[in-house]
Structure formats: structure tokens, C-alpha cells
């Protein structure tokens, strides 16, 4: 984990700047560069940012919960975080708003090795469930467990941090949440272990956006964000048409990610990308807020307008 922290702290990834003094934007990723952020890497590599006269700097975080705080503190313009986390942030008075979506389905899931003791969520009773990101994920897990008629107190929760796959491989836990359906499950298979996924949205949790872009409240109307969304949208559309060329671009920029496994994960991720990143699904944000409030994770569901805005893509900037 620390190796990862140190690495990520040092890992600043400058992108090719636009032709003329392009406007700069700094984005803190939610994790190390991985297929979830595909549209960003492609927008940089294929010049979609430059076309909209943007120079975007991508920075990997030291851990998954800090990016929004870093953005709120003004050290970055944009952070990638999770829709559930947005409510926690708002409840603590962190002045951030969602202005675009990267991945508009849940990715999180509980996975359990096939052949292990967990055949249904009900089997988790008196078993050990690992989790990687504390806070909302514990609550998601508890809601899922409760939907199977098991009292959450009857399941032992263990923070396995970044060792999701190895904790399952070594049978230190019977199942884990925080396993992404486009990632960990393939990683397990690559290690010869098949696993059964349980999806939150099928077990008592309303559907949500796994990855969203947030910015400081005061920056929500900034014209650069409209151009950012335009570049993102074009990049996503291009990616869906050129998935393999896209992976080749990614692997060229991040050689550590050039494996067959990552390619499989890449392909499993593309269908999850939001094709209209600037659009806001009001009902989804209202429903999830009500869910968290009902679960007593936040004192009250916030007004959607206070935590999320819609951003129209604005073409622009660069001279031909």
C-alpha cells in the first residue's frame, strides 16, 4: 500500500499541451491510472482536450478518499470520486458539486469465490466480509446483507485495504465488497479463482454513478468545464468506436498497464462509460440521497441542486 502511496504521490502525468497557451485544468484521479478513467487518457492521447484548448494535468492520489478534499482545498480543479461519497462530503460541509459523470452504473459488488461457503448473501451470516473503502461501502454492504435477511452485526467486517484479491485468494475473508465488476473479478480469474458477484442494485441499493467529476462549488459555471465535458464526450464516443486502438494508446502511455488482463478489464469497462457525461439524472441523485438518509448515514437527504449540476458541453477555443 505504501509503495503505492509513494508511487502515486510522485506520479504526476503531464499531458500534451495545446498549440497555443491552452487553459489548464488539474484533475485528481480516484486511483492509479486504470481503465476506469479511459476517456481521460484517450482525450489526452488523441487530442480531444487540445481541440478544446485545454491542457489537462492528471494526478494520481495517495488514497481513494482524499481526491475530493484536495479539490475542495483548492489544490486541484477537478477530482474524481464516487456518487455515494458526494453525500458524505456534503453532509460534512465540503463545498463540492458533481458537474459530470465518468461511469454511470455501479461497479462495486460483493464477490465470493465459487466453491467457497458463500452461495447466497444469506450465507454471509457469521462469516467474514472484507472491504477496501470505509464509510459508504460499509453501509452498502450492510444494506445488501440486510436485504438477504441477515442482521449486519452477524457479519464480521474487516478492512482489507488494497488486498482485495489476495485476501480472497488466501481465504483470509469469505467474501469482499469493494470488488469492481470490471476489474477484481477478472483479476481473480487470471489467478485461477472464479468468483460469484452480487450486485448492490440487485440487493437493496438504488443504482448510482460509480465515478463522477466534482469541483468546488464556486467553479461550477467555469467555461473550461463545459469544454472539458465536450472533450470527454467526444473521447468516449471515439473509444466505443475504436476500443482496441484506444487500449493501444493507453498501453503506450502507461506501459505498466499493457497486459492481457488490463486489456480484458478495458473491454469490460467501455460499456460502463457515460456517453453524455454532462447530463444529470436528477431522480437518481434524489433517490440515492433518500436511501442514505434512511440508512442514517447522513442526517438528511440534500437538495440535488446543492450537490450536483448539469454541464452543457461547449465546443471551443483552439484555432484550426
Amino acid at each position, binding site marked *: *500500500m*505504501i*509503495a503505492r502511496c509513494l508511487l502515486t504521490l510522485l506520479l504526476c502525468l503531464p499531458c500534451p499541451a495545446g498549440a497555443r497557451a491552452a487553459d489548464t485544468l488539474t484533475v485528481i484521479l480516484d486511483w492509479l491510472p486504470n481503465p476506469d478513467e479511459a476517456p481521460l487518457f484517450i482525450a489526452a492521447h488523441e487530442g480531444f482536450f487540445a481541440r478544446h484548448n485545454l491542457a489537462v494535468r492528471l494526478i494520481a492520489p495517495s488514497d481513494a*478518499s482524499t481526491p475530493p*478534499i484536495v479539490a*475542495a*482545498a483548492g489544490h486541484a480543479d477537478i477530482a474524481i470520486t464516487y456518487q455515494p461519497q458526494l453525500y*458524505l*462530503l456534503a453532509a*460534512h*460541509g*465540503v463545498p463540492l458539486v458533481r458537474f459530470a459523470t465518468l461511469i454511470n452504473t455501479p461497479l462495486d459488488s460483493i464477490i465470493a469465490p465459487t466453491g467457497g461457503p458463500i452461495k447466497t448473501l444469506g450465507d454471509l451470516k457469521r462469516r467474514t466480509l*472484507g472491504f477496501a*473503502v*470505509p*464509510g459508504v461501502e460499509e453501509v452498502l454492504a450492510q444494506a445488501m446483507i440486510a436485504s438477504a435477511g441477515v442482521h449486519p452485526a452477524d457479519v*464480521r*467486517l*474487516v*478492512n*482489507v*485495504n*488494497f*488486498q482485495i484479491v*489476495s*485476501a480472497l485468494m*488466501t481465504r*483470509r*475473508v469469505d467474501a469482499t465488497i469493494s470488488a469492481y465488476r470490471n476489474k477484481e473479478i477478472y483479476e481473480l480469474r487470471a489467478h485461477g479463482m472464479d468468483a460469484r458477484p452480487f450486485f448492490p442494485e440487485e440487493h437493496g441499493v438504488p443504482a448510482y454513478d460509480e465515478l463522477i467529476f466534482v469541483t468546488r462549488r464556486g467553479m461550477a459555471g467555469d467555461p473550461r468545464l463545459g469544454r472539458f465535458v465536450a472533450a470527454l464526450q467526444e473521447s468516449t464516443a471515439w473509444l466505443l468506436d475504436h476500443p482496441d486502438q484506444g487500449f493501444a494508446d493507453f498501453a503506450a502511455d502507461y506501459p505498466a498497464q499493457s497486459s492481457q488482463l488490463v486489456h480484458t478489464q478495458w473491454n469490460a469497462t467501455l460499456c460502463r462509460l457515460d456517453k453524455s457525461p454532462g447530463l444529470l439524472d436528477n431522480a437518481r441523485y434524489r433517490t440515492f440521497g433518500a436511501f442514505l438518509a434512511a440508512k442514517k448515514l447522513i442526517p438528511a437527504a440534500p437538495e440535488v441542486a446543492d450537490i450536483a449540476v448539469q454541464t452543457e458541453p461547449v465546443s471551443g477555443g483552439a484555432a484550426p
Partner: protein
Amino acid sequence: MKRHIAPFLRPLITLAGLVGIWWLLQWLSGIPSYLLPDPPSVAAALWHQRDLLAWSTMTTLTETVLGLLIGTVLGSICALGMVFSPLMQRWLMPLLLLSQAIPVFALAPLLVLWFGFGMASKVVMAVLIIFFPVTAAFSDGLRRTEIGWLDLARTMNASPASMLRYVRLPAALPAFGSGLRVATAIAPIGAVVGEWVGASAGLGYVMLNANARIETDVMFAALLVLAAMAITLWVLVDRVLRRVLFWAPDTSAIA
């Protein structure tokens, strides 16, 4: 009278000063509470979460003390072995250095997988961290027995065993004490690192969770409790060592 109060008053004044500076900085700079909580909210968190914090402290304290005990015993055995067997010294020293060259933080995720997410992995981590200072200090002490004393023992026809028992060991105790003091100060680091990479209890676990939930007040409360625990443990060990090693001259007062 004055002499009795001063040792308690001084740290309190220092503490009050630090809290004052912290509060002032927070107030003057207007840093939002999700970045830096103010002292009253941390005090409130200390009170409201007292059960959780007490329970977590017990976990971390147990891990630390167990690590300290096992590490000290292993370190002492290792030091004795190295002093009396050059062969052992040649084989063990590189291993010892290696154990220090590898950052525990890098090893922690593996240790957690080997020894489980329970207490064992944290104890191992604490042992790894304190093993070196104990071994190094003790073996140095054993090696640096005054020649005159050894000569005297030899003239008195002492066997190697009684030379160890009556001369070398007592002479090495002050050095051993220094090693143990360092070990006590750093042992909680091992336990907390272990909790950081994977656990279901302990102060490190509380801090990690509070941080992710943006409960900076709870995070600071746990940090304060951890500091208080580490300092108390150190003071206790220091007191015991002073009492046991009463004959070792403390020249700091004769300055």
C-alpha cells in the same frame, strides 16, 4: 512541594500551549473543519466516542505490549548469541540489517496475508520494528565490558558462564535499557502500520475509517489517544528502567 508539582505541571503547560497555538491557527486562518478540526470538536469527539476509543486503545495497546515483549526477548537472545558466537554473528548480522532495510510499510500487506487480519500480524509488525534497536544496543553493551572487570574476573578464575552472569550482563544493562527505550517509543508504529493495511479493530483502524468518512475530529481524537498511549507506555518503561538500573550513574544532574 514545588519539586513535586513541577514534573506534572510542565507537560501540562506545554500541552496547553500547543492546543492554544492549534486553536489560534485554526481560528485565524479559517481552515474548514474537514481539513483541520478545532480543539473543542476534537474534545467532543473524544467524549462521544469514548467507548470506541477505549476499546480500540486496548487492542492497539495489547498488540504493542505483546510485540514489545516478544521483540525484546528475541532481540536479547539474538544479541547474546552474536556476542558469544562469531559464527552466529556472521550469519545473523546481514539478516538483521536486511530486516531494517526493508520498510515494514512495504512488508505490511504481505504480513497481513500471512498472519491474518487479526492481532498476530500487528504483533509481528511491532516485533520486526523493535527487534533491531534491542539487538544492536544490547550486543554493543555486551561487547563493551570494561577490560579491567573481565581481567579481574579471569584472575578470580571465573567460568565463562559466571563471567556472563556477574560481569558482562550487568555491565550491558544500561545499553540494553537505551535499546528498550527506543523500542518502546517505536513499537506502537508497528501496531498502527499493521492496522492501517488491514484490520477490524484498533486505533489505526479507527483513524483510517474516520478519515474516509471525513470525520477529522474523530481522526484527531484517535491520534491524541494514540500519542497519550505511546507516551504513557514510554514513561512507564523509563521509570521501571531507572529503578532497576539505579546503580547506573545518571550524570545529567551534575552538569
